[in-house]
């Protein structure tokens, strides 16, 4: 086994790629293709469990590192590594992989091998993005995500799939190009594509501001941060269910992950300058997303706009520049991945049965489909951040961090405004639930719909379990990411304005959650 | 650096060497332009100006011109002209070669080179001639038997749509 465990990150990354190549060349029949894709995704998940259990939470240094000189006399290297932040997002990705594939059993019937191949290719690219510690490698994986997603939306999408696919592609490409220019500029000065060499660069303030802008634009489009979000509803609505789940579950996190991993530690001056602006935009996004979600007639679009709102929280947490806020942001990425992923799956379930997503078409579904209604309710509650569910922990930490932020002059105002987003979230979610599931079953076409099948339950239950688990045992995640967050944020603490903000968070040593189960500690280990 | 200086150098007023050789040519050009300009300018001042349509027609020995002067020549004439140029060039190469051949032939190592150079050149030319001959391009009336369709119009085959 050592030949696997020695290169575990490569295995996790390239196993799906190998699967997709098989699907395009050898396995051309529908049934075997589905099974092969599922098998590969499950195997990848099992491999990633190795990461979970052998991960050392005490250190924030990259683990399982693989580094091979690749090009330009080693100035560009094949360089993979994983810290706690990557670990969490990787686990989310590999978990969603088999779930998504299983969810397409009925939904996708055309060109199945190709579809599965694209899903696995996308998964490989996403995993590579989380592991890459060389900027060129990172960029290659980052862009490689675009092409499978373009085809997933464009070939298997809805009515306006062409428009949505092109819009998605062009938006993300615009951002990426500026980031590429930034990367080349830094490579020119650092003489190496290694992330550590980039971190070691001491750039003048002016350069940092421009570079931060270039990197941030790429990530903000991906998140998407208001006002760059317009591609998202189109992409979500037109994408097939599986595409939406991956898009919401993992792809959007690329943006926040990129901010945390690259934009923030590389350009402390840029962060210090732009944090007030960005956190304001994040709060606008939270409220705007919630308000637009409120009036959506289409369930899927509603969920899409709720993503804008939720990821606003994630960005707000990052740019509160407190450790608590950043940890909360990471938590939000996971919670959102689970709950919104599940919501898209659930919307897909009803769409398969009724071929519509208009809220007004439904009503009283709870009567005929009790299991579906129950799981939908749990997911809805998780999405709006009910205590005891994952979303609550995340939003609580973010709001708390923002409130205590000393770098954000208007941190308290932002907290108050962002909190209204939580309230609005409850409103649009519950209102939607009420209109779809409760009341009388007026529309005759809603009668006789089959409840969740066994397969659909298998798809959804792991997500539901995790929503609860992360809600009551935050320590599972936080213990593993704390050291990594410390390490990633270290460059910020050294620079001018940042230490005060982090210091304030550090003076909040112990925080007990109402449930009492999850006890998470920040600060020096001695203080626990 | 500037134009007058440049002209000065080129015309040989300043500087020496190769540039100086242009001086004569430049003077010729300038004098030629001045002469023509002077003649036309003086005539313009002296002559009466009374244009009419008849005066603008093409002069054909006093006859009334008929038809357009923009007529197409038969493509054969161009072929003849091309052949002439080909053999003309051959001769232009051959003549100076023959002149120096006598001196260069005895030089060891060089004689063979000079000889075979010209042989290769002539062989290539000969191959070209043979090729053209074999293709029937030397026939005054070329046979078009292998081709089908309305060749004469110049527009044949499916894709031949005139450009808009």
């Amino acid at each position, binding site marked *: 086994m050592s030949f696997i465990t020695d290169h575990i990150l490569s295995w996790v990354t390239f196993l799906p790629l190998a699967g997709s190549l098989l699907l395009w060349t050898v396995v051309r029949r529908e049934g075997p293709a589905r099974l092969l894709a599922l098998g590969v995704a499950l195997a990848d998940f099992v491999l990633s469990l190795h990461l979970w259990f052998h991960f050392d939470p005490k250190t924030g240094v990259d683990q399982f590192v693989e580094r091979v000189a690749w*090009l*330009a006399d080693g100035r560009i290297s094949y360089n993979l590594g994983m810290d706690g932040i990557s670990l969490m997002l990787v686990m989310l990705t590999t978990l969603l992989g088999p779930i998504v594939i299983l969810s397409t059993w009925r939904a996708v019937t055309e060109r199945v091998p190709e579809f599965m191949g694209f899903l696995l290719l996308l998964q490989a690219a996403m995993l590579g993005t989380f592991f890459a510690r060389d900027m*060129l490698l990172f960029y*290659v994986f980052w*862009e*490689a995500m*675009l*092409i499978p997603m*373009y*085809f997933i939306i*464009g*070939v298997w999408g809805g009515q306006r799939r*062409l428009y949505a*696919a*092109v819009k998605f*592609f*062009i938006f993300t*490409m*615009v951002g990426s*190009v*500026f980031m*590429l*220019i930034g990367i*080349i*500029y830094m*490579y*020119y000065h650092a003489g190496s594509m290694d992330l550590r060499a980039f971190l070691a660069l001491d750039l003048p303030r002016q350069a940092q501001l421009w570079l931060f802008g270039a990197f941030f634009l790429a990530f903000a489009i991906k998140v998407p941060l208001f006002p760059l979000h317009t591609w998202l509803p189109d992409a979500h609505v037109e994408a097939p269910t599986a595409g939406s789940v991956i898009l919401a579950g993992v792809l959007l996190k690329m943006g926040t992950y990129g901010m945390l991993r690259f934009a923030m530690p590389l350009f402390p001056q840029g962060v210090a300058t732009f944090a007030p602006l960005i956190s304001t935009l994040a709060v606008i996004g939270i409220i705007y997303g919630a308000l637009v979600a409120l009036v959506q007639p289409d369930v899927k679009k509603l969920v899409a706009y709720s993503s804008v709102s939720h990821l606003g929280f994630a960005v707000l947490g990052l740019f509160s520049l407190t450790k608590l806020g950043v940890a909360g942001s990471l938590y939000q990425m996971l919670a959102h991945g689970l709950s919104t992923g599940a919501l898209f799956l659930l919307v897909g379930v009803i769409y398969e049965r009724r071929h519509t997503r208009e809220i007004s078409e439904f009503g009283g579904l709870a009567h005929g489909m009790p299991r579906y209604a129950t799981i939908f309710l749990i997911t809805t509650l998780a999405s709006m951040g009910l205590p005891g569910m994952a979303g609550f922990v995340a939003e609580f930490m973010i709001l708390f961090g923002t409130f205590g932020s000393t770098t954000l002059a208007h941190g308290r105002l932002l907290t108050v405004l962002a909190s209204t987003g939580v309230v609005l979230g409850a409103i649009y979610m519950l209102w939607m639930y009420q209109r779809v599931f409760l009341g009388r079953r007026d529309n005759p076409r809603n009668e006789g719909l089959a409840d969740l099948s066994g397969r659909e339950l298998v798809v959804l239950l792991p997500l539901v379990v995790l929503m609860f688990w992360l809600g009551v045992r935050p320590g599972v995640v936080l213990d593993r990411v704390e050291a990594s967050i410390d390490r990633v944020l270290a460059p910020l603490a050294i620079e001018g304005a940042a230490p005060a903000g982090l210091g304030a968070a550090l003076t909040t040593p112990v925080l007990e959650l109402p449930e009492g189960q999850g006890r998470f500690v920040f600060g020096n280990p001695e203080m626990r | *650096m*500037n134009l007058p*200086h*440049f002209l000065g*150098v*080129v015309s040989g007023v300043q500087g020496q*060497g*190769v*540039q100086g050789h*242009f001086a004569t040519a430049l003077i010729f050009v300038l004098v030629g332009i001045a002469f023509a300009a002077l003649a036309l300018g003086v005539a313009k001042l002296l002559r009466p100006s009374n244009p009419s349509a008849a005066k603008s027609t093409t002069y054909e020995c006093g006859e009334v011109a008929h038809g357009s002067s923009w007529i197409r020549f038969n493509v054969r004439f161009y072929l003849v002209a091309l052949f002439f140029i080909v053999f003309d060039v051959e001769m232009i190469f051959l003549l100076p070669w023959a002149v120096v051949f006598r001196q260069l032939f005895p*030089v060891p190592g*060089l004689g063979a*080179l000079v000889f075979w150079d010209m042989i290769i050149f002539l062989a290539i030319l000969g*191959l*070209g001639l*043979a*090729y053209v001959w*074999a*293709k029937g391009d030397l026939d005054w009336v070329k046979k078009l038997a*292998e081709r*089908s*369709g309305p*060749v004469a119009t*110049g*527009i*044949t*085959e*499916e*894709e*031949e*749509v*005139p*450009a808009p």
Partner: protein
Amino acid sequence: MELLHVKIPSWGDLQWWLPEAVLCCTFLLALLGDMLARGRRPVVAFAISVAGLLAAGALAIADTHAVAPAGGRAIMGDLMVVDGMAIFFRLLFVFGGLATVLFAWTSEEIMGHRRENKGEFFALTVLMTVAMMVMAEARNVLMLYLAMEGVGLTSYVMAGYMRTSLRSTEASLKYVIFGAVSSAIMLYGLSLLYGMTGSLQFSGIRAVLLGGGAEPFGILVAVVLILAGMSYKIAAVPFHFWCPDVYEGAPTPVAALFSVGPKAAGFALMIRFFYTTFAVGTNAAASNSLIQVINWPLLVSVISAVTMTFGNLVALRQTNVKRMLAYSSIAHVGYLLMGFVLLSEMGLAAILFYLLVYTLMNLGAFFFVVAVNNHLKSEQLEDYKGLGYRMPWAGVMMVVFLGSLTGVPPFAGFVGKLYLFTAVMDRQWFWLVIIAGLNSVISLYYYFRVARVMWLVRPDEGHDSPLRLSWLQYTVLACLAVPTLVLGLYFGAFKDLADAGIRTMAGG
């Protein structure tokens, strides 16, 4: 032995010039073979051409030791030089010529039953390959001009190959006229240079310039004229207007060759001429270029920015795929000129590498158009509906080519652009990089519009039968697509080849 200031060449030099010599013989043999076959069996000329190109390629690979003396080996009385760059371009041109010959064999436009002189086409391709190789080797002004005319004359004939087609003859005539004008302009510049320096050798011109023996204003005029003439050849704005018409009118395999061969040769010639004549030092920054009267970097960067922007913006509006590719090739000239801005070794090596990548992906895209045209007799984008499903393997490869042309990783085009961007990653030229980046996004739109029509739109009813390609077509396309993918991930060896080429060129 000196005669008329030119060293007399010896037969011995031929051993360093074997690939070219072999190709010259191939051309003659192919003509002879075609003649003996009475023009009825084009396979004779085809087979001879393929064999000759293969032999030349093998010789060129085996010939790498010809570079041995620093700065390359001067041959034919110093008219030409065989150095790393010459060898790089030899391989590139032989590859391009071979691919064109092979694919043309399967093309209806070339081999259709009504066509005449089929064998001639292959012979001409071989001749053009030789001329392009000489363009990359010339280090004497006369040789440079002869090689350029050699390429020009062959390409005029090839553009008009479909001589019963109005479009093709129109393309040929346009090409002749524009080509003649550009040659005249360039020749005028070259003669001025000769007049001022009294030397035809690049090195001789350089020596006079270094000694300050030439008038700066005269140099300015000469350089501008030469640059204008060469810009015609590579189709840089504002000397680009012949390009789309010629590409559209010429048979597609010919357009494919035009879009890579003469362009690459033009760049090779520009690199050698401007670098060895005007650049100072091994890593010449712009300020110590000999062309002090011109702000060289500014001039070239403006041409570059305008060229890529114009090419891309006009390509956006094209509905004919071939014409779109023509404008896109103009845009790529703009990208390539980025490497020329600072006349630095880094930039020139980036040009070489990009030319290699560009040859692969652009030939591939054009060949796909050929394959489609064989079946559909159309190059209109609307006829490409659902093509991906009718010819899946070729369709996938077309996506690879398009992705690479856009410059998306993991395709080779991305790496090529990466190096070009790095070459001008200097404070002062940052704006050029940003313009180039934005241009990549624009190009994304029209390249992927083709991919979109092919894959995301379903074929019309009744037009959805599978289209078959021959094994030869698949082989050639795969030989272009696989390297396009591989070079995006592992390009070290080829980048080294390009670097070495520029290094040995600069060393002499």
